[in-house]
């Protein structure tokens, strides 16, 4: 297994498109991809810069995005953050959907759901990473979807293949954003802990509970928590902040 993987060279990232007719449109909430010049996309760029400052000089290489529960905006944040990284010229950025129980990345990006992905790579070590990487139409971002293998995600993540795969991914990409399952729902994110540089925790305004956040922070290794992204924050972006943002909005 390991020889097969280590023998493989760098993979070709550019140019792979989702099969015509099967891929849909990208969700309009993914502002980093659909409207990179917008005020909203600017916030994800500032998240990216803040994240990079947590691990000087170059920032964390592999960032897992998680949240206490379902519905905090974890997947949206992960995709937009990956999109913010992909805006850099020549950056090799990979987005991994490790939430194999409730995968959301493929649908949001208009990629075929029932194609090879992370679960398939973990279940069958002979598969090549290159064969599972997709690129949404008109994007430079590479995506590894959750996959179609339906074996228990917890068992898949426990296999030795995960370490080998993550090593391979690190050699092929400059930045890797991993969308992981919620901290409190399942214990999958613990299995990923050893292979990521840190976790970004998404907390939604008026949604995530104090209790949930407290428990999540207790569950996570303190050194691995890079920081919090406060999502759906209404309070700051009204009045002149908002008007200021409009000033920079592209005129159509």
């Amino acid at each position, binding site marked *: 297994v390991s020889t097969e993987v280590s023998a493989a060279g760098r993979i070709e990232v550019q140019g792979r498109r989702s099969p015509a007719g099967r891929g849909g449109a990208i969700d*309009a*909430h993914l*502002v980093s991809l659909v409207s990179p010049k917008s*005020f*909203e996309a600017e*916030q*994800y760029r*500032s*998240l990216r810069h*803040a*994240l990079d400052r*947590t691990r000087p000089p170059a920032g964390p290489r592999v960032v897992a995005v998680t949240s206490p529960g379902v519905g905090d*905006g974890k997947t*949206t*944040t992960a995709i937009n953050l990956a999109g913010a990284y992909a805006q850099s010229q020549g950056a090799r950025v990979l987005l991994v959907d490790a939430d194999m129980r409730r995968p959301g990345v493929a649908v949001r990006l208009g990629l075929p759901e029932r194609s090879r992905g992370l679960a398939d790579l973990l279940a069958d070590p002979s598969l090549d990473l290159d064969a599972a990487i997709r690129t949404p139409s008109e994007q430079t971002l590479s995506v590894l979807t959750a996959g179609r293998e339906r074996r228990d995600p917890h068992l898949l993540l426990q296999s030795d293949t995960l370490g080998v795969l993550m090593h391979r991914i690190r050699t092929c990409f400059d930045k890797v954003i991993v969308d992981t399952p919620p901290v409190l729902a399942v214990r999958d994110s613990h299995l990923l802990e050893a292979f990521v540089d840190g976790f*970004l*925790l998404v*907390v939604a*305004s*008026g*949604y*995530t*509970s*104090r*209790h949930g*956040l*407290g428990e999540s*922070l207790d569950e996570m290794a303190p050194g691995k*928590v*890079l*920081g*919090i*992204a*406060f*999502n*759906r*924050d*209404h*309070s*700051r*972006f009204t009045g002149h902040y908002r008007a200021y943002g409009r000033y920079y909005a592209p005129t159509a």
Partner: protein
Amino acid sequence: VQQLRVLDAAIPPQEPFAPDRLPLLVVAVILSLVFSAAVLFIRETVDPTFHRVEDLRAFTRVPILACIPPTSTLMDRVGARLKTMGALLVLLTTLSIGIVAAYVFAAGNHGIARLIARMGS
């Protein structure tokens, strides 16, 4: 022969004699203010979520890397507009049903009819 004499003619009151509406109105206004304040207070204390980034900062020392505004697409805005219009429609319907019901109920009762008429003006 006994004669009946009207010593003092009874005059029907122009206005309803009772109840005295002003104190009732004052009490109702005060009670509703107190009640809504209590509901607000309870909701604020029971609500376990974070509303401002300051709430979050007070709760944990983990750095807050970014505040991200809610992203509203054209479809979201259209959806929100439709929802508002729907709510307005429900409100107007309920109000008009209430007004019609009040008029029907008060038909023949001049006191109540006068009161409603005065409230309306």
